[in-house]
Each structure stands twice: as C-alpha cells, then as structure tokens.
C-alpha cells in the first residue's frame, strides 16, 4: 500500500502551488483557481488521514464534503464579485482594480 506520507507530500505540494497562484497571478480568475487548489489540497489531506488513521469513523470524509460545499459557495460569491468588476472595467486583472492601496 502507498504510505501515508506520499499523500501528504502531494497535498502539501498542491497547497503550495495554490498559494503561489494566489500570490503571483494578476488575473482574478486565476487567483480564485489558486484558492480552489488550496482547498482541494486540504481534501486530499483529510481523506488520506481518514483512510490511514481512523477508517472506522467517518469524520474525515464528512469534513471533506463540507469543504466541497464551502468551496462551491465561495466560488459563487467570488465569481459574482469578479463579474461585477468586469462589467465596469472590462478587466479581471487584480492590479487594475487597485484604488485603495495596501
């Protein structure tokens, strides 16, 4: 059987790639994709931990389902906000919507 740590490494890799996407991409849609990648990394983690640590209790799997649902809700709100900005600016580049400074 594939050892647990391999799953964890994949998950950590996905998480870091997602994080890199959020921090480096200028396109708001790509940033959103990065966030989704981070949440999916969590799902890999949760399901792997569930399978290897507590296969008799369903809490890990159930949690992964919650993460799906929340990720969907987040994507819906995020895309709506991005569309709102696109309608005004004809652009989804995060730098173009920078009225307020950090």
């Amino acid at each position, binding site marked *: 059987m594939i050892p647990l740590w391999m799953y964890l490494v994949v998950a950590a890799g996905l998480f870091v790639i997602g994080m890199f996407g959020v921090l480096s991409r200028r396109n708001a849609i790509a940033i959103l994709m990065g*966030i989704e990648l981070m949440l999916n990394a969590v799902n890999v983690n949760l399901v792997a931990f569930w399978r290897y640590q507590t296969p008799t209790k369903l809490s890990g799997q159930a949690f992964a389902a919650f993460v799906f649902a929340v990720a969907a809700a987040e994507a819906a709100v995020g895309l709506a906000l991005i569309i709102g900005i696109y309608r005004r600016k004809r652009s989804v580049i995060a730098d173009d919507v920078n009225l307020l400074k950090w």
Partner: protein
Amino acid sequence: MFTVPSLSDLNLAATLPATLLALGASVLLVLDLFVPKGRKALTAWLALAVLGVSLIVALLSLGDVVDLGTGEGAFFGLYIADSFTDAVSVIVLVTAMLGVAVAYNYLERTGMQRGEYYVLLLFSALGAMLMGAAGDLVTVFVALELLSIPLYILSGFRWRDEGSEESALKYFILGAFASGFLVYGIALIYGATGTTAFGGIWAATRDLLAADAATKYVLLLGAGMVLAGLGFKVAAVPFHMWTPDVYQGAPTSVVAYMSVAAKVGGFAALVRVLAWGLPDFVLSGQSAAAWQSTVWLIAALTMILGNVVAVAQNNLKRLLAYSSIAHAGYILIAVAAMGTAGVANEAARAVVIYLMAYAFTNVGAFAVIVAVERDDGGHTDIDNVRGLAKEQPVLAASMAVFMLSLAGVPLTAGFVGKWFVFKAGLAADLVPVTVIGVLTSAISAYYYLRVIWFMYFEEGEGKAQIAWPLAWGISVAAIGTLILGFFPYLLSDMARGIALAFGG
C-alpha cells in the same frame, strides 16, 4: 454501520437561539420577495424581531452556570450550549440589532435599500454565534464561512461604487486565502489527533505528548495554521492588511456591524480551539502551552502597529480600522493568558467582557460616522467633524463617549474591558506584553482625543443627518457604553459562569 439519529438525540432545545435565528433568516429571505420595493422598512423590522426573539432566548439561559463538562451538547457535540455560547450569542445579537438600526436610514438615503441586506446580516450573525458554540473543528470551519461569505457580499453592497466593489474583492480574496490556511491547519490537527471534536483533541494531545511522538510537530503546525486563519478574521498583525482598505471601501453601516461581528466570531473560535482543544499542548521544557509565546508576540505587534499607524490617519474610517487592529491586540493578551494553567477561565471571561464593551463602543463610533457621511459615501475625513459639537451637540457628545471608551478612560465600558484583560495578562505572568498594552493605550489616547478636539474646539460646519432608527442606535450604544462603565459588575456577572472545563 449507521444508526439514523432520532430528533431527540440532536438536543434541539439547547440550540434554540441559533436555530431560531437560522429559521428566521431563511423565512425572511423568502418573505422579502413579497415586500414591495418602497416598503423595505418591514423587512428591517422583521429582521429586528427575529434578532430580538433570539436575544431573549439567549438571555434567558445566560445566568445558568454550566461548564463544558456538563454542558449540554447538541448535534452530537458539534454544538455546545454553555455560558460562553450564551455570552457570545448575546454580544453578537446586540451588535446585529444595532447594525440593523444603523443601516436602515443609511441604505435609504444612499439608494442601497434592499431586503437582502438584512437577510445577509442575519446569516452572518448566525455564523458568529455558531463560532462561539463550536464543539468541533467542523463547526468552526462552517461557521467561519457562514460569517464571512455574507460579509464579502455586504462589503460590495454599494455596487455602483468602485471603492466598495474593490473592498469586497480584496476582502474575498484574502479571506478565502486565510480560510484555506485555517482548514489546512484543521486537517493537520485531525491527522495528528484522529478526531475533530475539541474534547477528543484535548485527550489525544495528552497521549501524544506522553508518547513523545513526532506527530506532535504536525499538531504544532496545524495549530499555527489555525491561528493564522483566525488571526486574519480578527485582524491581528501579520494578517491585518485587508482591514483599512475594506473598512474604508465598504458601506459604513456594514463596517459598523462587521468590525465587531467578525472579531467576536474570530475570538470566540480562538478561545474554543486554544482553551478547550489545546490547553495542555505543552512542549517539553516549557511551562505554558506551546502557542502562548506566539500569541503574545502577535498581540504585542498588533498593538504597536495598530496604535502607531492610527496616529497618522486622517480618514475616520481608516483611523477606526487601525484602532480595531489595536483592539484585537488587547484581546490577544487575554487569549495568550489562556495558555497558563489556572488562568484560562479568568482570561476567557476577560475576552468576553472586552468584546461586550467593544461591541457597544465600536458600533456606536461607526454609527456616528454614518450620520456624518454624505449620500455619495464621501465626507468621512476627520476634517468633516470640525465644529460638530455646535451643530449636533448630542451626536458630538455620543462620539466623545465612544472615543473615550475606545481610549479606555475610566467610567466607560472600554476601561472595564481593558482592566480585565490586563488583569488576566498579569495573572498569567505576561508582564512585558501587558506593559506594551498599557503604553500603547496611552498612544491611542492621542488620536481618539484628536477627534474630540476637532469636534469641540475647531471651527467648521460639521453637518450630520440623523433619522430616528440611527438616533436610536447611537443612543443605545452610548447609554450602553456608559452603563457598562459605571456598573462593571454587569459585565463580570455576565461572564461569571464561563468556565472552560478542560476535557469533556
């Protein structure tokens, strides 16, 4: 493998304040469709009624002294009904009621009057309540999202305005990024302990430390990531960047509500996770919990940065944003104090007391800005309150009360909150960070008093528009701030029952 739970196993009665709010918000969402456009006052009233009923139910059980060990769990421990839950519910519901009162007239005159505003506000209040009631990391995560997602939408509620739209996008991106960290941390905690229930985590931590397994570093990493995710919600320093921009861009009535609700929710969850799940997570060679030093370092940075940068602000909304960062720092002193064995209950009480005081004061302060603000969203600079005392003596007096309370002057609620927080810090031997707290409050007096100076001693045409729901909200907040300041035992009585018995 499964047995279908019966309804009585769920212990619905214990969750009554939250269940009523959830039902009310869902019904209101549908009802609002039948409220004609010009008569959204009805929706606002219904929202107030829902919050009021829920508040009464929460108040009825407030006096009960129930500790976590015997506290009634509901939904198989996902929801905990104890004194802490009730206190958090009361704070959130009071904030939400003030939030509705502050919003109604403002939405009307800025052309944003839509029923969804109140529904979203109810849902986010529910999220904040559930964070206080969480008995499980699943609840923390779902409640955090229930709190945050409506707030993202509300920040963008003035959708014709670029600033509001941008603040919503910025809040959303950074918020979702932070919840990614939170949930990754939760997954690691689950991996290290094999459970997501706080009681189970607490028990597993002991075994983990006794066995001296390397897994404890997984737990440490998980706790750190959870701290980062919740630190974002409460605007603690390395994760505070969104605060000034979002507060400045979002509609002021939203900020009045969100500045308090997001903080209450975040701190409630922090208290639950740290004081209940991980209090005994002590690495070898240390006397306090592993997270304590990190938390007090964050507290110190938060207080210093928030207070120092606030001095340079000229926009009132930005000034209060940095002030709210600073206040997160004060509360974090109490959170750090929870890491010392024996001080945890006192510190958790201090957190609740501070949040209650902060709720009245901060909603009130933003409500005054709502009154001063023009219909186009401008006119929120400190110059715009020049001479306000001549034009609007009562409004200026209320603002003075709020500023004094935020500065922590005796006989205001803010002083009582600071007193308990600093006391908890000293009880836990966190002397350096408490001293930083006292010193930075002295700095904060400068910028709060500056606002009072501008209102009373500068010439100008300070104008404000006050309609009665707003006036009502401001008066309640001001009177509340003073009453809690004059009678501190009201606060300590409210928090008296809070005892986070470890384990459970």
